[in-house]
């Protein structure tokens, strides 16, 4: 099955984090911000021209670049793969 990452998904989708494939320090940073496997997130906003995206992590909102979003592997909220 193909892995889907956060960057591939459109605005308004709710997904669950499966794993984070990013350099270790970056991954730990995101982990500590609450982006751990199992956490539900929602994609709220897309900036134009390949700018950052805005996501909702539980109770708060975070801006990320597309490049980082590519390393965040997600699945459907009910746990099935995408």
């Amino acid at each position, binding site marked *: 099955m193909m892995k889907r990452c956060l960057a591939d998904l459109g605005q308004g989708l709710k997904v669950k984090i499966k794993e984070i494939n990013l350099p270790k320090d970056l991954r730990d940073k995101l982990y500590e911000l609450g982006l751990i496997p199992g956490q539900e997130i929602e994609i709220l906003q897309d*900036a134009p021209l390949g700018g950052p995206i805005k996501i909702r992590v539980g109770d708060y909102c975070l801006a990320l670049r597309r490049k980082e979003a590519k390393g965040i592997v997600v699945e459907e909220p009910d746990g099935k793969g995408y």
Partner: protein
Amino acid sequence: MEKVIKVAVVGNPNVGKSALINAIAGTNIKVGNWTGVTVEKIEAQIEYKGFKIHFIDLPGIYSIANKTAEEKITIDFLINQKPDIILNVIDSTNLKRNLYLTIQLLELEIPMVIALNMWDELGKRGIKIDSEKFSKLLCAPAIPTSALRNLGINSILDNIIKTYENKDGFNFSKCEQFETQIEDYLKRLKNFIEQTHPGILELYPQRYLLTSILEGSFDGYLPSEIKEYADRLKEEIEKVYHKDIRALMIEERYGLVLNILKQTVKEKPLEEESLNFSLALDRIFLHRYLGLPIFFILVWLTFEMTFTFSTPFVDWLDNTLSNLSLVVNNYLKNSPDWLRSFITEGVLGGVGFVLVFTPVLFTLYIILSFLEGSGYIARAAFLMDRFMSIFGLSGKSFIPLLLGFGCNVPAVYATRTIDSPKEKILTALMIPFMSCGARLTVFAFFVSIFFTNHRGLVIFSLYIMGIFSAIVIAILLNKFYFKLEHSYFILELPPYRMPTLRYMLLNSWIRVKSFIIEAGSFIFATSVVIWFLTNIPFGVKKEDSILGKVAKEISVIFEPLGFGTWQATTSLFAGFVAKEVVLSTMGNVYMQEVPQTQEDQITVSQFAKDTVVGFFNAFIGLSEEVGQKFGLIEKEREEVDTGLMEVIRDEFTPASAYSFLVFLLLYTPCLATVFAIRQELGSNRWMIISVLINFTTAYIMSFIVYNFLKIYF
């Protein structure tokens, strides 16, 4: 003797730590609705029930393991300064992420009091928290607070004292329990250290030492034996769990948090009203296509409003101060000429030129503090991220740059929140090009002489030129020196909040006040120095004085820029110290004769009456000004030149005036900024490079602008 309690205020960024201290101790620590407002430890004190409670406001942190520069300040303080108590401030509307830090703080084995801040916002979101259960589960009293509504202040203080007095009765470790196997690994590590280097266990809080060694985030000195042993343990763990230990422990902590939340958060809301409001606003402000145009319109409006709203008050101050000068002059009519000259011209004149423009500053600061308090600043960073990535920076660098429009000095310190050292240096080098409030006063003065019909446009063009120069410099530096490629951008976007009027007024007043004080002290000092230098040897004309002669020699280098006079040169020298004194220095060097005792006299009571009436008229003027903006009212602008204005009008052409302003804009903003750069980048080299870059850019740009304009004007 009074007992002193040292309380470290710790928590995630933007949870209201500074606001809470302000509410408790009545201080005016800077507050703003974005992450990274506080970048330095700031102290505040209060006496309460016979104790002296000493609060230390620290930069916000998400974790004690990751360390960027400002996080390091907080973590080093906690570990090395050993505060008596940690006041952990939590955003109750965002418990999960906040509690992650709380769990980690327990590892420091310092008694803790928890402030469940933003309690007032909970109602809006329909969440209920059982704070008593909370206290039990976290081994620390948890008190609902609201810095906004002054809720829970006394309770916090009482609990600090209670916790302090029962200091030894706490068992911190029982609240953080990992699963048995990990605890076993920690125990093994501890046994090993006990056998080989027991001394190390004494130096740090034990739990913190063990977890951070195992996580790999410990950065103090470790004997290689321990490192090797820890590495072996890590390998073992990874084999068992198929995960690295750091990830495992973070997940474990989040597991604990979820467990606590399950037991304490009573009601999960269906509709999250206040968050929805922010989401709706963001749909406009961060809109794919509209976001950027809206941002630029807002910037443009800022300039327009700064001038529209301040003009009537500038006129009023101008009148008041020239009347004051008449009154004083009259009062001194029997004193010797030199004294009269010194006071009316050097001191009063100097201060006056600067004071006249404080309404411009005040309006600018009001607008800036609205941006800071509302949460829009983080959105601006979001919108600009794509653009900033062109020269290797991220949207995060945009925040210090934006703050630079208020004052460059705090902007330089704000670069501390930038993770990568290279990005930080590059950003700090760009800041001096952001035109600050002090420069604005000089622009406003010149524009009122030479460009009355296009005031907004001319000043806007200067700001744009500053930004443009910064970008060119950044692109060049990045291409040939820094070669930044892989920056990342992770930024929390806080909910929008409506800044209170009090907040905006106070914020702006603090800044205007410091401008006045700065200006006042510098003006007096430079006025004295320049007055002497332009009067030695005694009796000669100013241009034959020592200063006149020296400046004349140097002024040749400014000849190609259109302002090669000794007066302009002297003013630029003064401007290197601080832009606040440029106008006053001009007053000192351009005005030739001693003012005559004027014929038109004014009594003190008449003066007082004019001042008050004028002030109220300014408000009428304000509405006219606004009306005129929208084409509702036609208003004739009568121009009354003050002495200096007349002289400047004769000495400069529009082209050389504009060129002068460009130079003023781009060369080193002030000594304070130079020192800030040295301190923040920890290097003399970068300080010198920064000054050189600014001078060269200023020279080149002024040269181009002057020679281009000369053709047309």
